[in-house]
């Protein structure tokens, strides 16, 4: 064998390699010669072995499939063993071609996404400077106590008042740390949130409780602050001013003392 070095392309998987081989042949996927393809495919695997590349199991499975297809072709139609349960639709050749066509379409779609991605990097949104208006200037009265908050969350919990005696037990979908991230994101977008808005999308009691714990934790960490503009107005949540840190919610840590928040506060 001639001594030459091949610059080896790294293929994502066996389908990727097959598509590459088909492209090299310059034929339509539907008209590809699977036997030739099988040979070339195995050649590649040999090369990979020579180069000491780790061959993923998927490549071996594909090689086996190709060999099976090739071996089937060696027999005339009449002599082929009828594989049990195999119907016309299960023809291994067809199955492979179908898979290749489908994969190719998604590869093309990925290219289109890539084009959109680079286009988006060049699109600039209009972001006007934040103007100070009267409405913003009104100083909120930062005197919401933990009891006010508990009262408010009780109102929200009433939405889910129906207690279920029997229910499926499933993994908790929500964690305090996830909800903390969610709240931080929300406040980053809106800067002021109504208390009720925090619970707009919740679907269960547990989620209300978890969201509430996240809120308490953020207040304790002085990330957020709860304010009430006037008596009986709805409680609003906004980012805590570093200077104006209100001494509210003295120690909700007792309530939030779960393993989740522990790990966060360290």
């Amino acid at each position, binding site marked *: 064998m001639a001594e030459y070095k091949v610059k080896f392309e790294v293929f*994502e*998987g*066996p*389908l*990727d390699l097959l598509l590459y081989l088909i492209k090299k042949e310059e034929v339509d996927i*539907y*008209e590809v*010669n*699977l*036997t*030739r393809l*099988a040979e070339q495919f195995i050649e590649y695997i040999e090369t990979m072995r020579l180069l000491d590349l780790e061959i*993923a199991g*998927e490549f071996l499975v*594909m090689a086996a499939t190709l060999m099976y*297809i*090739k071996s*089937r*072709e*060696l*027999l*005339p*139609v*009449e*002599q*082929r063993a009828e594989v049990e349960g195999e119907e*016309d639709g299960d*023809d291994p*050749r*067809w199955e492979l*071609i*179908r*898979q290749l*066509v*489908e*994969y190719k*379409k*998604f*590869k093309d*779609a*990925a*290219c*289109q*996404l*890539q084009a*959109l*991605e*680079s*286009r*988006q*990097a*060049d*699109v*600039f*949104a*209009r*972001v*006007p400077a*934040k103007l100070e208006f009267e409405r913003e200037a009104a100083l909120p009265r930062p005197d919401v106590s933990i009891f006010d908050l508990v009262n408010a969350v009780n109102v929200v919990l009433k939405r889910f008042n129906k207690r279920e005696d029997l229910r499926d037990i499933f993994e908790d979908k929500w964690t305090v740390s996830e909800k903390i991230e969610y709240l931080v994101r929300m406040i980053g*977008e809106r800067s002021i949130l109504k208390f009720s808005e925090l619970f707009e999308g919740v679907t269960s009691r547990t989620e209300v409780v978890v969201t509430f714990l996240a809120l308490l934790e953020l207040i304790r960490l002085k990330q957020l602050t709860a304010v009430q503009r006037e008596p009986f107005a709805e409680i609003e949540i906004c980012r805590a001013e570093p200077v104006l840190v209100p001494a509210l919610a003295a120690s909700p840590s007792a309530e939030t003392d779960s393993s989740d928040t522990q790990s966060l506060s360290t």
Partner: protein
Amino acid sequence: MELKYILEALLFSAQKPLSTKELRDIFAAAPEHAEGDETARGLKKVKESELESTLEQLSKEHAEANRSYRLVCVAGSWQFVTQPDYAPWLKALVGHKIRPPRLSQPSLETLAIIAYRQPITRAEIEQVRGVAVDGVMQTLLERGLVEQVGRAEVVGRPMTYGTTSAFLEYFGLRSLEDLPAADELRRIVVQKPEALMTADPGLATVPPEQLSLPGEQKSAESNSPAPDTAPPAPA
């Protein structure tokens, strides 16, 4: 005053992209700020659908006027953005956008499959791609482009995944309907050709005498090498 110009003014000065719902709330609140203004009162109860169609109209007008910016809807919210052609100057002005590194080819492929086929399980994605997607999924989940959306009602109840609104924002898409060739890719129907070509035309040769089953001589002959024509499809 026309509705579309009010919308234009709102989006022109908005701090962030606005959804039709948010715009509707603004119209509902506007009469408070305009004593006796007929237009403001008249538009108090404007419907979201009307806002939507007016915005479409406005967006079209901007496109036709061929200005350097467009009114676009990304992930359901409307905003003004510049055309990509002006990027060099804008980059000099405001610097490069802070964007996470470009997605790798495997990530894009996986993302494309999820985008078109959601909700989809990991196993289904792997079936299309032919390789394991664990690492890639991790990246996509970490970047918030996909999320768990539920569980498939099959054995083991595996998680299903879908794209997030961050996905739409990242690619500047209005909705999932806005994906290129959405209908075609959502359910790819691959037409099976009439006669399947064989793996290697002419490979299926007449079996040696002793291998033929009695009474099969005739059909075996019809199966002799035919290099130019595709041998018959399997039964």
